């Protein structure tokens, strides 16, 4: 496999050739500047800005209708922004038609040409680029090997399984060696097992080719697994752009905390601010002590967010075994629901205030004696560092 050589017989504009100005040298590969797109009066994408570096595996994550696909389609050239600029390698690509962009897209339902064989589907883009016949044959063979479809070259799309079609679509979009590969829900049509193995393959491929991948997905697990950075979109705006870990452990907003993973939220007011900790008077959980966030909290009605796996349970009266280096918040309540999920067990604890707190306990031992039953009284506790303070 010799995919590292960046040569391609592409007659279309080559964005890498001669940056227009010196500033472009440290420009990100792709820059989205204040881009807006309206459909009728509905703002699908709303003054969105985003930088994506070369070689990144970037995921756009959001619920359906949040504008992530519209953004992707603007990058591909199928939609034109109403406002703002899209710069690829420092150049505005607004006037560049889709068939002339050094960007390729893998479509959600693959959009394979039903009348063409696997080989001709993969070769389609190469022929349009005016590549020599022999070079096309070499490249197609390379792509077929890359996605492990040897022996299937003569088949038509309707003679392939869903997983094989997905690979043909991938090979077809990679064949032209685009600067950026856009993937629209690339795994949505696959079943769970196949999705997991394909995720790994996509990651490996991206690493090996050193290409920039931008994937649109509504599946947060998929985004977390594959991407270096994730942009969470909501109502046409980016709520947060961060590596998966930061997104989960340090969500920027209440919306992100709720959208990514599971979370317990306590609404309240900041009552005291001592040097390293805040005390927040919450309606449902009493006074909760939290570590002072890196970004100061400006507005006073705040929410305290705690992930369920950070909430530990113990029997009332039993001293917890945590170190005393940081303050511990203790809330008492009654177990109302136990969901055994295999790797973990989720307890729902009804606090004395009436609020429900979820706690996820990892089942680290096969014969676990430390379990709780429904209607058992427990103490739910968590450290101040495990809390995140969010403005409402």
């Amino acid at each position, binding site marked *: 496999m010799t995919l590292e050589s960046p040569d391609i017989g592409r007659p279309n504009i080559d964005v890498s050739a001669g940056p227009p100005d010196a500033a472009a040298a440290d420009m990100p590969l792709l820059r989205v500047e204040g881009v807006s797109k309206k459909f009728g009066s509905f703002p699908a994408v709303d003054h969105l800005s985003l930088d994506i570096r070369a070689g990144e595996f970037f995921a756009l994550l959001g619920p359906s209708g949040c504008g992530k696909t519209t953004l992707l389609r603007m990058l591909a050239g199928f939609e034109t922004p109403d406002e703002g600029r899209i710069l690829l390698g420092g150049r505005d690509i607004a006037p560049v038609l889709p*068939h002339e962009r050094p960007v390729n897209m893998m479509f959600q339902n693959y959009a394979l040409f*039903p009348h063409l064989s696997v080989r001709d589907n993969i070769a389609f*883009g190469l022929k349009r*680029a005016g590549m020599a016949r022999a070079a096309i044959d070499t490249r197609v063979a390379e792509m077929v090997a890359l996605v492990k479809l040897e022996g299937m070259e003569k088949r038509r799309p309707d003679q392939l399984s869903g997983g094989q079609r997905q690979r043909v679509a991938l090979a077809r979009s990679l064949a*032209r060696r685009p600067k950026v590969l856009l993937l629209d829900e690339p795994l949505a049509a696959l079943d769970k097992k196949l999705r997991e193995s394909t995720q790994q393959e996509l990651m490996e491929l991206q690493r090996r080719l050193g290409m920039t991948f931008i994937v649109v997905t509504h599946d947060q697990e998929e985004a977390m697994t594959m991407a270096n950075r994730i942009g969470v979109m909501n109502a046409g705006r980016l709520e947060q752009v961060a590596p998966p870990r930061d997104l989960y452990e340090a969500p920027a907003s209440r919306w992100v905390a709720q959208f990514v993973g599971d979370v317990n939220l306590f609404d309240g007011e900041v009552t005291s601010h001592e040097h390293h900790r805040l005390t927040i008077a919450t309606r449902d959980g009493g006074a909760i002590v939290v570590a002072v966030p890196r970004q100061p909290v400006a507005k006073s009605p705040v929410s305290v967010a705690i992930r369920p796996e950070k909430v530990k349970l113990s029997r009332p009266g039993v001293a917890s075994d945590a170190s005393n280096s940081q303050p511990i918040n203790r809330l008492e309540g009654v177990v109302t629901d136990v969901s055994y999920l295999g790797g973990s067990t989720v307890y729902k604890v009804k606090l004395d205030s009436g609020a429900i707190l979820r706690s996820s306990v990892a089942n680290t031992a096969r014969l676990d004696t430390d379990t709780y039953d429904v209607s058992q009284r427990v103490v739910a506790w968590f450290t101040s560092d495990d809390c995140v303070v969010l403005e409402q």
Partner: protein
Amino acid sequence: MSTRRIFAQPARYAAIAPYLWMVLFFLVPFGFVLKISLSQTAIAQPPYVPVFDFTEGWAAIKAAFAQLSLDNFKLLVSDNLYLSSYLRSLIVAVTSTLILLLIGYPIAYGMARLPQRWQAIAMMLVIVPFWTSFLIRIYAWINILQHDGLLNTVLLALHLVSSPVVWLSTDTAMYIGIVYSYLPFMILPLYATLSKMDPALLEAASDLGASPQQAFWLVTFPLSLPGVGAGALLCFIPIVGEFVIPDLLAGSSSMMIGQTLWLEFFTNKDWPVASAAAIALLALLVPPLLLYDRLQRRTLEGGR
């Protein structure tokens, strides 16, 4: 379970219906025509011999069988009139079908790209002429094309011609009539294939570097070929046997096979030759039908 039994019996009978229909209204009449085509003309009622009379016993039937001959078919291939009629029918049908394709494809393509709610209206406009009798519409064309008709009036008013053009009783008038009458049959199957095509395919083509023209010729057109085949056949076959339009609009110098058939049947009262001509016409139309069927099957199998 009980519901299944309720529906099972009528469903089984319903499955026989198309076969029954075919036997009653196609195979049996076809048998009659075939038999008449092998008979000889006679001044009698019916105007041919032999007539099978099943009441006169076995020997009479055998004698009647012996009288059947292929003479009428020999006449068809030896007489120039029939050969030239067949040839003219084929030329007219092929030419008309090509014109229909050239006019119908852009219309169907445009319809398929209209916003959804306009598509229904466009569809209505294509079908609306059927609300008027076919014959009346052809007579309307006679009116438009005659010496002082609408077309000549307009052409004279625009100074495009200096004296009225003779349209009626020409091949041009016939082609106008045929193309006008058969256009819906070309548009509808084309529209059906074009409108169900996934627009993402064109985006994919564009994404892979195809210009809009390339995308059309490399993706849209090949994928619309089943519609092209269906539309062409739907027009070609009835045009070959067309009688009314050439009779009313074309000149009398050369005839299509439908006209020749009519002449033999009603003017010459030569039922056997007319039947032979009809059988030969059917034989002529079977090869393109089989070809289409094979092509269709190959597309369905996906070129294995």
